[in-house]
């Protein structure tokens, strides 16, 4: 537990928080990268998932996409994308993370729309709702818990994976850990490594907790206890 104590000592030094490139800087980088990645993932995953779910086909495509991304190492995306026209800096990191945010968003949106009782749909049709009205007034509101579940999974995963951006100097809290390894164990890097690990782990758990609350708030009461729309397997965070 020696290194653990060193990690706590490191965290208790205010300079480690406020220095340029210190914890606060890295935290802000981490959150902004994660935010844009999740936003991009939503912009891609939700419309496709909702559309496929509305039309009621493409389930095989959704499963295939989810399984394929499981096999792609995030490290490969992080190293390959900067060499494309995207260039270096934040954009390739955001895109790489978004690639892994899409499957849970897509799959949950699809499941959410597919799991609506067909009788509900028929009733809405019988009331004279058009396809668009059905989608907006019936299907989307009923799918909100699933969309929230997908968002939670994707966001937690992105926040966790964003730590790996440090491998390609992409910023974020991972930089604290990799800098610690750079210093070396014998030179007191151990404390910094542990401190970075603690902060990254805490951030992931906090985001998970917060979004679990959000998911609960947007889920209508009758649906809460009966089924938990965490349908899709979570893709491990890089």
């Amino acid at each position, binding site marked *: 537990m020696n*290194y653990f104590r060193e990690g706590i000592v490191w965290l208790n030094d205010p300079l480690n928080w406020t220095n340029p490139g210190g914890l606060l800087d890295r935290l802000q980088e981490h959150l902004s990268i994660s935010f844009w990645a999740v936003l991009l993932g939503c912009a891609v995953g939700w419309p496709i998932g909702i559309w496929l779910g509305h039309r009621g086909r493409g389930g095989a495509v959704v499963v295939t996409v989810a*399984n394929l991304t*499981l*096999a*792609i*190492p*995030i*490290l*490969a995306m992080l*190293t*390959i994308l*900067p*060499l494309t026209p995207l260039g270096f800096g934040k954009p390739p990191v955001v895109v790489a993370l978004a690639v892994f945010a899409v499957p849970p968003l897509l799959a949950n949106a699809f499941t959410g729309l597919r799991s609506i009782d067909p009788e509900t749909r028929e009733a809405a049709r019988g009331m004279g709702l058009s396809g668009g009205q059905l989608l907006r007034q019936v299907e989307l509101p009923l799918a909100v818990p699933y969309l929230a579940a997908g968002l939670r999974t994707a966001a*937690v995963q992105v*926040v*966790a*994976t964003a*730590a*790996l951006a*440090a*491998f*390609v100097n992409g910023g974020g809290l*991972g930089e604290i*850990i*990799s800098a*610690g*390894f750079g210093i070396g*164990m014998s030179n007191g890097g*151990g404390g910094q*490594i*542990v401190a*970075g*690990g*603690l902060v*990254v*782990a805490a951030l*992931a*758990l906090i985001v*998970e907790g917060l979004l679990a609350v959000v998911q609960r708030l947007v889920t209508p009461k009758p649906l809460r206890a009966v089924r938990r729309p965490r349908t899709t*397997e*979570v*893709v*491990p*965070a*890089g």
Partner: protein
Amino acid sequence: MAGWPLAAPADDAPGNPWFSWRYVHDNADTLLSALQFHAGLTARAVIVALIVALPLAVVAYWIRSLTGPILALSGILYTIPSLALLALVAPLVGTTTDTSVLIALVLYALLVLVRNALAGLTQVPAEVREAAAGMGYGRFGRLWHIELPLALPAVVTGLRLATVSTVALVTVGSLIGKGGLGDLILGGFRNNFYRAEIVTGAVLTVALALVLDLILAGLGWLLTPWLRRRGA
């Protein structure tokens, strides 16, 4: 490795091609040993995780009040980012051995395996359990002869998911130079953005994942002959 085509294709042009047979040919030994290390580490991680996960799933299945805590604990371990796990484990175990990577990988594979095994066990119909009890099976006999075989498809599914994601996760170990093919990916990036090295490492990683997935799928097919007869 004389099997590679020696005639240089067009993409071997000077500059920085995305893929180059010459790179593959010249570095066959490095590639092979990285692949071997990667596959070995994956196998060890998944096997250890399975050895830990199965008893956990059985305990969670037998003692209902432990189901929640066991799933919650493995869920928390799963939420913790792989890099953080590595950062917390490596200083304790040592930054020069692959044991720290192995521990992080095992902790990570646990949730998928426990959850799937438990799902498989709880799917065993109550009538089947009663019939087994009526035939005189005890708790362990029932588990071994009835419940585990019936849960096998779910366990194999979990095993496939865990294996594929572990193959991708091993690359994170390149932080301490124990990432197998990930070392190639990161090495290529650091080596003045050597595209051929990066892409070869990435392609081999994905290929390894797919091959292992196919092998496990085949194994599951062999182990569950009763599902085939039904035409499922």
